[in-house]
């Protein structure tokens, strides 16, 4: 089919616009990476854009030698693993029965779940609840209250609904019960959705900072996001003493922030190329039935 002249012009402009979008999206991130490898004097002079100036990796060494950074980084790893495991198990336990149309009261439970998407208790009742349960300064404050995401639950339910019933009927003939069917038949068939959910929950837990900010007062328990937040807000003593002299510290403040940011997103950026196609297919799966 022949294209009109206007459409050809549009196509050229379109590519230019999209390249501009790519540039604008990547620039802030690459700017931080460049800063993390630059020396302070060029950063304060505002001379670093995409290429490091006065190349130095001293700040990386300083951060890496800060024991609190490692403690907090390790905490993030632990919270992510435990939180993701709890989220996955609970979501599966709920999504599977809800996917069964024969389940009595299915619509009631769906309403029960979906209503929480539109109305929530609000920050203060949540705060009072979590504290009165004695979750303060424990991992439970982070991994339990946000364990199930309704959005993820609905994506999972949609996927389970599309598994043919005949497979399960065959398993019943062979004498399997519901648990057996779920573990031996349904879950092995659900690897794509389980991978997607794993990634959704893992990224959420990795990036989470607000619950820790609310419920944690002991530095040793902080996730790395709070370590970074305290650096950004200029809170005192984020870098444990002894790591570097005070003089040195003020000199490299901007540098420390960029290095910590880079180290915080590093795992995500590393796995990103491999995971993003799962994320995309996951969202699309969920959108099939709205």
């Amino acid at each position, binding site marked *: 089919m022949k*294209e*009109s002249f*206007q459409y050809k012009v*549009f*196509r050229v402009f*379109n*590519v230019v616009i999209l390249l501009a979008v*790519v540039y604008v*999206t990547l*620039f*802030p*991130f690459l700017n931080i990476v460049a800063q993390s490898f630059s020396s302070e004097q060029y*950063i304060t*002079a*505002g001379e670093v*854009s995409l290429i490091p100036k006065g190349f130095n990796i001293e700040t990386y060494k300083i951060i890496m030698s800060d024991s609190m950074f490692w403690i907090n980084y390790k905490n993030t790893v632990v919270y992510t693993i435990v939180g993701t495991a709890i989220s996955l198990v*609970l979501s599966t*336990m*709920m999504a*599977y*029965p*809800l996917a*069964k149309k024969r*389940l009595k009261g299915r619509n009631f439970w769906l309403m*029960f779940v979906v209503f*929480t998407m*539109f*109305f*929530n*208790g*609000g*920050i*203060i*009742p949540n*705060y*009072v*609840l979590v504290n009165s349960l004695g979750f303060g300064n424990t991992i439970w404050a982070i991994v339990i209250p946000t*364990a*199930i995401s309704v959005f993820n639950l609905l994506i999972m339910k949609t996927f389970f609904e599309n598994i043919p019933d005949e497979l399960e009927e065959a398993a019943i003939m062979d004498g399997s*019960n*519901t*648990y057996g069917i779920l573990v031996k038949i349904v879950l092995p068939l659900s690897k794509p959705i389980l991978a997607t959910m794993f990634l959704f929950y893992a990224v959420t837990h*990795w*990036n989470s*900072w607000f619950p820790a900010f609310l419920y944690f007062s002991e530095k040793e328990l902080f996730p790395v*996001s*709070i370590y*970074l937040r305290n650096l*950004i807000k200029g809170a005192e003593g984020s870098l444990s003493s002894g790591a570097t002299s005070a003089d040195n510290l003020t000199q490299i403040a*901007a540098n420390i922030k960029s290095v910590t940011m880079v180290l*915080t*997103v590093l795992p*995500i950026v590393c796995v*990103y*190329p491999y995971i*993003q196609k799962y*994320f995309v297919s996951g*969202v*699309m799966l969920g*959108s099939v039935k709205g």
Partner: protein
Amino acid sequence: MEQQLVKDVKTKVTRPNTKWQRAKKVIKKDWQLYSLLVLPVIYFVIFKYGPMFGNIIAFRRFVPGGSIIGEEWVGLTYFNMLLQDPTFFLVLKNTLVLGLLLLIVTFPAPIIFALLLNEVKNRGFKRFVQTVSYLPHFFSMVVVAGIVLELVSVNGAINNVVEFFTGNRYPFIQMPEWFRTIFLSSELWQTTGWGAILYLAALTGINDELYEAAKIDGANRWKQTLHITIPGILPTIVVLFILNIGNFLQVGFEKVLLLYNPLTYETADVISTYVYRIGIQSASFSYGTAIGLFESIIGLILVFGANFMSRKITDNSLW
């Protein structure tokens, strides 16, 4: 006679029970399915419905360390406080302005982006642009705030450009008149690419034959977009619009909390950050809850209202 009696008794016993027995049979057969629901339902009751019930402290005087549902009924005292609180009206105004700007700017952006991407014929280039555009969605809010603060700092990259044109550098993050621009730009940066996914999914669902027919009728690409593409993704637009309306008042709580400072409260302070400061930092739990409840109820009304309107006007709705 005797037989009749027996028959009567039998029907009396069995008939009212058939429904219950059928239900019992289903439950008995599927009790394992129900047993799976137990833990998640307990989770929802405690951690989702529990706090909703906890809103009762908006009507009761709560003492930190005291009863979780407060000490005594005080009626609408805290709501009267709210109506006499000038800060509340400031944060309400800020929330409405920011929410409206977000709706105007960040809601259409993914639609336009998806439409532009849809015109790209080179699959490799399309995939590259998409992959890049999702990236900011995966960054922690703390990192996003950090990046934003670095960019707009006095010696940051944006001030380099500003200096080139005006010869001056500005401390943007301390200037109330710039907060909304900074906030909107960062939302745009973080959410446009990810938001486009659903629209792209909807675009692939449009029947190609419609385009063929339009071409035969002599419609150019713009006319095709106007009359086929946009109506094709309209249901998706409506659903996401309703969801957005519901979150209208909860504008980026975490991001505002990380980006604002006392100098920018004038424009940056929104209901949720005010609730946080009143309720948790100043420990006025009951008053904070009252403000939060006000916010949630307005949000709920907006969702139901938008859903109702859209069902009337476009025949598309969430339920």
